[in-house]
């Protein structure tokens, strides 16, 4: 925790006095503010941040460090023919943002934004590795020699470990320009450059139960360029455009020392090498058209033809010098996918109260990457293994969607809609070569009354697959009765209802119910059931002049069932007494209370809010009555709770200046066998596991901001 300097308070107080004096002086001048065309506001002051526990999780996407803050700046110069505006948020901090915008009436619009998004993983991460060059991690050789000789073990690595903050940042610079030479024509240019720098947890495996984590470097950039020429009049529109995207990653491989060995053999390696994200590009041209027809009808068409390419140089099969090199079938990836997308939409309201819509959408991901033939590969840089599939399987798919809807309005503002949708997907290199999903839906939407609004929808879908290739499953050693859940036969029901009731202007209530039920009737193994329910209610009230209150509560219930069979090769593989199931459950309570008291005291306003989220989950293993498996010891239940409270008090020093005190309270609690520190402490790191100690921990923090808001 850093201390809030007293000098900062002094500076703040001095500024307040000076501005207050200036305000008094200016108050004696004639009021000319209505003539102004330049206005602006600035929030500045000082912040004190105190946290106990996991500071990184608390500041995951934000920067709350103590110190002086210019938290918000806005400037607007509005002339008769043009407008310039500028904005800045969190100036100088890791989550800062700057924005500028220029608009000249109907001819030019230009804007620029620079936005930083931090991602803070951990403050307690530690590693004995040293990054000697980007992506190359070395560990002390004497340690490795000792471990290989049996005189040391991995616990000795702890003495070599150094602690560091694990974080990364996404910096986005975006420029947008629209030029309108005349009333009908627009030329658009968008350029965005996004860089990611820092590090992220990454693991290198050296065989079963031998895993090493390192802070893999991030230093890549994506440049996106989009252009469009668009012509429109009252009857229609036509557009042509181009979109290009280039991803550049100079660190395309990761090399990590095996902490257990210092020499290579044909069954063990002293180091591992892994491919990281390869540089790639995407280019697409597109055209769109829209035209009005009589009968309140419109037809819209869109076609895009694109190409994704990735041709990075391939690393060798292994870095293990004891293994005879396997020749690469080709030196570069030569990965290439042609993407064709098209949408056609016709909508019409030929008579009052009737609305018809039909849409066809086609998306073809035509993966033209040549098969990369592999007879033998090197498993985790340690052992030459035969490839079961004989090489790569470039996945491609073609999706055709057809939707048709008809809406009828029997009474004003009440739309009854019935619809049908059909999706056909044809794939290469997947279990089902083809799936078809038919969906029926009905909606009732009532929105015309000040008293209440109702929106409901019910959908029933049925997905079936054809061309099931069980041989593929058999060849890779999977149960042939498995149907991968994302493409398996599925019956789905979904219902959603939202009711907004406003009996009087000062009081409103909103309730919503959402339910979903997925069943996979043909699946013996894998995910068979997935049910969810959400209930939410919120109340908003304005009990008196200058006071508003809001309360909301939501409850979510999610349940899943998935089946498996624990087996070694041989008889066990077909033994149903070795079946087991997992019943997953999660229930989440979310609540919010908020209020504004604008006239609690003279010139004083109070705002408050409190957010609460509490999740409890369980994965419960279930064995059949005739099981031959050993009794299970159930996993501990999961739990996490987030609290965020805000009290914001403002005192109006002058009409254009207020002094404020903001207090934030944040708290996070958790019990999680997969993320928590308890599990991390149980892991035996003496045999072959060397982790970064990147775990979730509870935190509690308070943030106090003393600030002034000044407008001119």
């Amino acid at each position, binding site marked *: 925790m850093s201390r809030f300097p007293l000098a900062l308070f002094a500076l703040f107080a001095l500024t307040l006095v000076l501005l207050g004096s200036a305000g008094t002086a200016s108050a004696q001048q004639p*009021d000319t*503010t209505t003539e102004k065309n330049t*206005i602006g*506001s600035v929030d500045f002051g000082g912040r004190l941040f105190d946290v106990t526990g996991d500071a990184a999780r608390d500041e995951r996407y*934000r920067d709350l460090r103590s110190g002086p803050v210019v938290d*918000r700046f806005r400037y607007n110069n509005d002339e008769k023919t043009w407008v310039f505006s500028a904005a800045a948020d969190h100036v100088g901090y890791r989550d800062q943002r700057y924005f500028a915008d220029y608009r000249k*009436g*109907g001819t030019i619009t230009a804007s620029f934004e620079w936005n930083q998004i931090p991602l803070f993983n951990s403050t307690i991460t530690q590693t004995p590795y040293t990054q000697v060059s980007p992506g190359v991690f070395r560990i002390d050789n004497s340690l490795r020699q000792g471990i290989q000789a049996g005189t040391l073990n991995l616990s000795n690595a702890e003495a070599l470990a150094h602690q560091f903050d694990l974080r990364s940042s996404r910096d986005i610079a975006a420029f947008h320009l629209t030029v309108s030479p005349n*009333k009908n024509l627009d030329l658009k240019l968008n350029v965005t450059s996004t860089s990611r720098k820092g590090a992220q947890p990454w693991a290198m495996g050296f065989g079963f139960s031998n*895993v090493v984590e390192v802070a893999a470097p991030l230093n890549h950039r994506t440049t996106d360029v989009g252009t469009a020429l668009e012509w429109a009049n009252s009857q229609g*529109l036509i557009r042509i455009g181009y979109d290009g*995207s280039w*991803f550049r990653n100079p660190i395309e491989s990761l090399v990590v020392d095996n902490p257990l060995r210092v020499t290579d053999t044909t069954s063990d390696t002293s180091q591992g090498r*892994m*491919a990281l*994200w390869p540089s790639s590009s995407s280019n697409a041209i597109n055209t769109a058209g829209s035209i009005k027809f009589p009968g309140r009808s*419109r037809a819209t068409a869109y076609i*895009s033809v694109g190409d994704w390419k990735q041709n990075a140089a391939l690393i060798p099969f292994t870095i293990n010098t004891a293994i005879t090199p396997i020749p*690469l079938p080709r030196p570069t990836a030569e990965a290439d*996918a042609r993407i064709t*997308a098209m*949408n056609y939409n016709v909508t019409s*309201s030929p008579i009052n109260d009737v609305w018809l819509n039909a849409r066809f959408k086609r998306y073809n*991901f035509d993966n033209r*990457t040549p098969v990369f033939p592999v007879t033998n590969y090197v498993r*985790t840089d340690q052992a030459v293994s035969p*490839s079961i599939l004989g090489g*790569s399987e470039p*996945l491609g*798919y073609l999706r055709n969607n057809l939707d048709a809807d008809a809406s009828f309005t029997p009474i004003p503002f009440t*739309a009854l809609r019935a619809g049908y949708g059909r999706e056909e997907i044809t794939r290469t290199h997947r279990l089902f070569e083809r799936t078809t999903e038919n969906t029926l839906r009905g*909606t009732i939407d009532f*929105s015309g009354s000040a008293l209440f609004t109702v*929106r409901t929808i019910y959908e029933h879908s049925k997905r079936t697959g054809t061309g099931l290739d069980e041989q593929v499953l058999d060849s890779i050693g999977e149960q042939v009765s498995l149907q991968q859940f*994302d493409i398996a036969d599925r019956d789905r029901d979904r219902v959603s209802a939202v009711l907004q009731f406003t009996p009087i202007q000062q009081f409103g209530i*909103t309730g919503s119910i959402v339910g979903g039920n997925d069943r996979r009737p043909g699946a013996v193994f894998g995910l068979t059931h997935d049910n969810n329910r959400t209930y939410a209610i*919120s109340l908003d009230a304005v009990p008196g002049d200058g006071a508003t209150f*809001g309360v909301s509560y*939501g409850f*979510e219930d999610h349940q899943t069932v998935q089946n498996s*069979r624990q087996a070694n090769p041989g008889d066990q593989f077909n033994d149903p007494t070795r079946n*087991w199931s*997992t019943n997953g459950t999660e229930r989440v309570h*979310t609540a919010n209370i*908020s*209020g*504004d008291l*604008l006239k609690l005291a003279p010139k004083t306003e109070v*705002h408050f809010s409190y957010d609460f989220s509490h999740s409890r989950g369980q*994965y419960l*293993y279930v064995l059949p009555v005739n099981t031959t498996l050993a009794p299970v*010891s159930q996993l501990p239940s999961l739990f996490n709770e987030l609290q965020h409270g805000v009290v*914001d008090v403002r005192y109006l020093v002058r009409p*254009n200046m207020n002094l404020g005190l903001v207090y934030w309270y944040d708290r996070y609690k958790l019990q999680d066998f997969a993320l928590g520190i308890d599990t991390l402490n149980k*892991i035996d790191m003496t045999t072959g596991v060397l*982790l970064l100690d*990147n*775990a979730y921990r509870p935190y509690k923090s308070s943030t106090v901001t003393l*600030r002034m*808001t000044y407008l001119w």
Partner: protein
Amino acid sequence: MNVDPKLLRLLCLGLLLPATARAATAGFPVIAPVASHANAVEKQAPVANGYVGADTCVTCHDGEGKSLSRTEHARVANPRTPMAGMGCESCHGPGKAHVDGDGDVTKIRVFPKMAPRDVTAVCMSCHDRGDHTFFQGSMHDSRNLSCITCHSVHSPKSEQAQLKMPTQMALCVQCHRPEALKLQRNSHMPVREGKMECSSCHSPHGSTNLRMLKVGNYINESCVSCHTEKRGPFLFEHPPMRESCVTCHDPHGSSNERLLVAKVPMLCQRCHIGTRHPSTIYDATQLSSVRLFGRSCVQCHENIHGSNSPSGNDFHR
């Protein structure tokens, strides 16, 4: 001391924000600059064909005229605005019958009383470019939403886009409550920190993608527009990743790390049911194993989104 009413309005905009909106803006006040230049509804000479001109309108509707003057709609210098055309009547239609009828509201367009798609048709007579091209037939259109369901021409409360609520989050949550609830989970995108908003991914006006996603033509194209490193194509592809990112991730939020829809290894075990370790029961006796902790299966199968290594068929490398 005389106080500039515009400055007062600025203060009010900042101070009257509901707490939900403040939460979305990280607890700091939203004091939205609005056009301070007096884009007053300019006087126009009455014209033929039933039009009376804006100066006639504001004799009764002074409040609406003033509120409009603070918005882009009133910018006469822009030939695409209503004020550069027929003024108030560009949107509300010819007003002569309304005036002659002593303010008869049946003789003029009163948008809240119009059928939603009729409202949309008026707005789209100008707002027909970009994403708006795809509004008709979109999910919002099919649910009978009109432009004024979300936007306010005369009384906007947001800093941008003339929304009826101070922030996108406060607006969208009114109907999309389940998604908003998920944003409160411990694994979430930086929406509640104010670094993203609903429109970072979605285009409420319509799109060429599914689920009104703003970028691309399919779900994955939207995701990899930011997570470009996962675009590939790769030498070895993990099929569910190539099919759809949302097979494994819930972009709105999750209690599991990395927005996963279930914990690993349970998530992986929904598809991988073979022999040995993929179909092993990982119960409490395995808590000392690395196979339950953190990234679990992904500790070894690290390149789960796809591998460019010749030895990457199991995504180990």
